[in-house]
């Protein structure tokens, strides 16, 4: 069945006052400000329309939605006319019918009559409206001036623009402005010459970010997905959740049998409200890419070629190797890594297997290298390891602070929502070494950009808090009511010290005291203030301290516990929040309860019928250290590529190479698989049931739309391995895993698949106290009781620039690629970004004789690599930037072993480096190419 959402024509209005009117004799009551069109649809009355759709403000151009209103002259457009009390509206009359038919005649007189061969056939609003108005002839004929020979723009890899089919309704232009906020499209020309224009020579050459909002908005086949042109319209659709970033957009997978035709954003999705980005909307082709590994493989040594085997043999071999290793080296000599790309249920069973079947707590997750400081920092101050708000909260923010995050690239759908609020007048403070797009973009200008030096976050946040405390901007009543008095008193005394003042730190942080003071005043006095942050906060030696610093600042200004405020981590991957919630850390069970808590551990022991350990296990970097030391010999890695994503690649690969059995479960033969002995094929998000939990704690269903290509879903593989290890786990469906999570985890007590289906999605905590979930946390008090101010002394990182390494490297990701690139590199997104480049300020480039596009060496004390330079004044002098999307670049060959003091989260954002022009790739890259070829050989069976 195709799921079709109702289009109400114009957006919903929120108003205290209701108005009652009559439409075609039926009484309707709607909030004041609601359009007549929407009121009619509420009453079950469809008014013909073309230029109206309910995620765009009404425009009133198509003239199809005309109505008659008793006592008023003319035929106003129902989309732009608000409903008023006592109105009597008529949507059908001979006069209206004639006018609508006349309008359709004009449209159709300049439209190709190729409906039967058109890609939109059966799903075309123009076609539908022609039918609705009863168009039977076009009196003008088809020989007049027209646009039928207009040239089709096929430059975008995912959709085409066919101006011959365009009715110039402006829905695409308005979607680009109102929904996406990019303003890439416009109507150029006037009158008959009016045409949609992307500005450049074509769509690919334009500012278009390929979010698909224009394609979604188009009522004809003018903007059309290439997959639909190729395959035709879908015959059924399934609601599921995107497997890219932590926004967790809800999508309709539109299907023909087991084949995806297109992914369209689901209008009822509470995280995305019908919007998408290029990755979720279009970049799903990796799921069926020819590189998918579909057969299990084993080998005795990593130098051997892979040998394809049955699932039974692969699982049996992995289990026997783990058992052999434990017998020889001890129970603690093996461990496992869960994935933030996998479902909650999959991560839960992996950590259960490690704790129960491996018999230790050596389980960790890729959140270790991204948001583990969020867990520590927010747990210490607020009492739970999660963001405080739902995304919609930003719609009530008066001041928005973005710290160490680049939402337009990394969390594009939320960025659009944020930009909409900014266009409405919210103030913006950006704290980032780079001039990210939010600092200045169409119709946006940050009030403050604080371009701090990498590694000085804590000094900046302390200086802002210092201003609040010393300029009497403290929310005294809030702090008295909500926070621990002794901790506050101590913190107040600490933060008020002169060494934390803007004047004292300006030379350290590289931001003027004047700007620091003004930004702090704006945050404290500008109304409801929200902090959004990313890995530019966490991936530092003081990542956890910075999280606590932001929490302190929010508490001291009373910005926690209500809409528009909060401290909000923007999670990098789809299920970072969920993988942490599910007990993937070595010291915690699900729901963030320490393994040393006897009562909690006994509950799990009883449920799992096994004795559990009460001491913490190894974190990922500790596992690798122990492997190099010789005491850690076996690893099960589900859906993570530590050989590419983790810092100091040489150390990571040395650790992997020192192990005797590495089991990799993944869609592709990734970099870590080069060091593996067992490869277990993974399943994509399209091939399994489960849930993801996004950055706002929203648990959403992942629904299977096709069978697992390799025969088993990831959770089934883990169950098979656990059984082979002598510890069978009895679940027949992922819903039963979630049922167990709910039984054993108080914050999930009310969660079940049935409940998620009923509500659409659920934000935890969901239990008796909050049966429908919790959009905003800490409303009546903090989870830990009283909020706790923590001391946040600024301690500079030990990673210092020197004469040998005078620049600071910071890393991140861009819009079209995603993390290690395993997914996006296997899509057409490479057209926008086919290699990692090094962004460098013109001054630093000139000083080194580097021209744009030159091959340069990027060297640190850890290692060196080579990549192309991109000269950019987005950078500040002294700071360079690159991404880590391509394995061959080896960005993490350069990053070091330094990490956050509390969590071991790597300090990706600060590496002292030197850059110089070179003529050849680095030795590491040359060796990488050779060893990669050797370690990925698959034995061909004759």
């Amino acid at each position, binding site marked *: 069945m195709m799921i079709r959402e109702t289009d109400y024509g114009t957006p919903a209005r929120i108003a205290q006052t209701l108005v009652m009117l009559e439409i075609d004799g039926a009484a309707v009551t709607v909030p004041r400000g609601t359009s007549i069109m929407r009121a009619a649809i509420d009453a079950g009355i469809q008014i013909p329309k073309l230029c109206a759709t309910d995620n765009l403000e009404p425009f009133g151009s198509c003239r199809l939605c005309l109505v008659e209103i008793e006592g008023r002259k003319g035929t106003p457009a129902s989309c732009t006319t608000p409903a008023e009390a006592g109105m009597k509206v008529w949507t059908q009359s001979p006069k209206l019918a004639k006018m609508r038919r006349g309008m359709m005649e004009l449209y159709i007189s300049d439209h190709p009559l190729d409906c039967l061969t058109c890609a939109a056939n059966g799903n075309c609003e123009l076609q539908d409206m022609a039918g609705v108005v009863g168009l039977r002839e076009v009196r003008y004929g088809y020989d007049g001036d027209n646009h039928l020979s207009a040239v089709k723009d096929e430059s975008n890899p995912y959709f085409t623009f066919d101006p011959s089919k365009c009715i110039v309704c402006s829905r695409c232009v308005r979607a680009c402005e109102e929904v996406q906020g990019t303003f890439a499209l416009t109507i150029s020309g006037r009158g008959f010459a009016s045409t949609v224009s992307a500005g450049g020579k074509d769509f690919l050459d334009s500012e278009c970010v390929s979010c698909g909002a224009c394609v979604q908005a188009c009522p004809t086949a003018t903007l059309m997905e290439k997959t639909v042109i190729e395959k035709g319209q879908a015959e059924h659709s399934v609601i599921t959740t995107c497997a890219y970033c932590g926004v967790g957009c809800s999508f309709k997978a539109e299907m023909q049998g087991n084949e995806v035709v297109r992914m369209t954003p689901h209008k009822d999705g509470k995280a995305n409200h019908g919007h998408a980005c290029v990755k979720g909307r279009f970049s799903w082709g990796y799921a069926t890419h020819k590189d998918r590994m579909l057969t299990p493989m084993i080998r005795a040594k990593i130098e051997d070629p892979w040998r394809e085997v049955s699932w039974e043999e692969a699982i049996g071999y992995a289990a026997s190797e783990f058992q052999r290793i434990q017998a020889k080296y001890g129970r603690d000599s093996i461990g496992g890594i869960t994935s933030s790309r996998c479902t909650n249920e999959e991560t839960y069973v992996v950590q259960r297997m490690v704790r129960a079947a491996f018999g230790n707590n050596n389980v960790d997750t890729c959140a270790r290298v991204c948001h583990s400081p969020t867990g520590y920092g927010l747990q210490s101050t607020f009492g739970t390891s999660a963001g405080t708000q739902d995304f919609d909260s930003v719609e009530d923010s008066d001041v928005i602070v973005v710290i160490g995050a680049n939402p337009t690239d990394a969390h594009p759908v939320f960025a659009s929502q944020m930009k909409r609020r900014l266009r409405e007048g919210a103030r913006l403070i950006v704290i980032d070494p780079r001039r990210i797009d939010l600092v200045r973009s169409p119709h946006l200008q940050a009030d403050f950009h604080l371009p701090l030096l990498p590694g000085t976050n804590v000094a900046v946040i302390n200086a802002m808090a210092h201003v609040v405390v010393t300029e009497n901007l403290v929310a005294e009543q809030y702090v008295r009511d909500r926070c621990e008095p002794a901790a506050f008193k101590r913190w107040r005394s600490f933060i008020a010290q002169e060494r934390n003042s803007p004047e004292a730190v300006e030379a350290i942080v590289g931001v003027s005291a004047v700007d620091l003071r003004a930004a702090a005043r704006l945050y404290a006095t500008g109304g409801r203030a929200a902090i959004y942050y990313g890995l530019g906060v966490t991936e530092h030696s003081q990542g956890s301290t910075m999280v606590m610093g932001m929490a302190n600042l929010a508490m001291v200004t009373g910005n926690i516990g209500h809409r528009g405020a909060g401290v909000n981590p923007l999670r990098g991957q789809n299920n970072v929040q969920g993988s942490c919630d599910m007990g993937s850390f070595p010291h915690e069970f699900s729901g963030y309860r320490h393994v040393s808590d006897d009562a909690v551990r006994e509950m799990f022991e009883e449920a799992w019928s096994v004795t559990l350990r009460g001491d*913490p296990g190894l974190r990922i970097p500790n596992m690798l250290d122990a492997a190099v030391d010789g005491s850690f010999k076996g690893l099960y890695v589900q859906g993570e590529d530590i050989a590419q994503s983790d810092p100091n690649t040489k150390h990571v690969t040395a650790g992997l190479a020192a192990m005797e059995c590495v089991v990799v479960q993944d869609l592709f033969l990734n970099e870590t698989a080069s060091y593996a002995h067992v490869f277990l094929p993974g399943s994509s998000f399209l091939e399994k049931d489960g849930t993801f939990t996004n950055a706002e704690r929203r648990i959403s269903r992942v629904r299977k739309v096709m069978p697992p290509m390799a025969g088993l879903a990831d959770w089934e593989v883990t169950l098979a391995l656990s059984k082979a290890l002598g510890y069978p786990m009895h679940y027949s469906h992922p819903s039963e895993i979630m049922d167990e999570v709910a039984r054993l985890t108080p914050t999930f007590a009310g969660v079940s698949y049935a409940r998620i289906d009923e509500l659409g999605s659920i934000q935890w905590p969901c239990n008796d106290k909050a049966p429908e979930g919790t959009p905003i946390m800490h409303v009546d008090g903090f989870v830990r009781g009283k909020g706790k101010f923590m001391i946040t002394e600024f301690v500079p990182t030990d990673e210092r620039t020197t004469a040998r390494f005078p620049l600071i490297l910071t890393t991140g990701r861009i819009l079209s690629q995603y993390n290690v690139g395993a997914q996006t590199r296997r899509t057409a997104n490479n057209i926008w970004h086919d290699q990692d480049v090094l962004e460098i300020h013109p001054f630093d480039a000139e000083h080194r004789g580097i021209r744009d596009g030159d091959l340069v060496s990027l060297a640190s004390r850890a290692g060196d690599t080579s990549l192309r330079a991109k000269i950019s004044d987005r950078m500040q002098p002294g700071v360079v930037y690159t991404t880590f999307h391509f394995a061959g670049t080896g960005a993490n060959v350069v990053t070091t072993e330094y990490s956050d003091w509390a969590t071991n989260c790597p300090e990706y954002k600060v590496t002292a480096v030197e850059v110089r022009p070179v003529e050849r790739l680095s030795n590491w890259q040359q060796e990488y190419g050779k060893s990669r070829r050797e370690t990925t050989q698959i034995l061909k069976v004759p």
Partner: protein
Amino acid sequence: MKPEQMVHMANQIAGYFAGYPREEAGSAVADHLEKFWERRMLQQIFEYVDAGGAGLDELAVEAVAVLKPR
């Protein structure tokens, strides 16, 4: 792990808790190590302190003294 890395990590933790009053800081470092460090890592720092604890922050040494009998 390499001793210098272990010392660096322990000193970072000590560096954070140095912001707290001296009478609390040692046990806070000990609590942190107990909560997050795996037994091999704890064993390594115990042995390192027994061998003189060169380069270790005083708070880290104090934490080991608190932790060892637990």
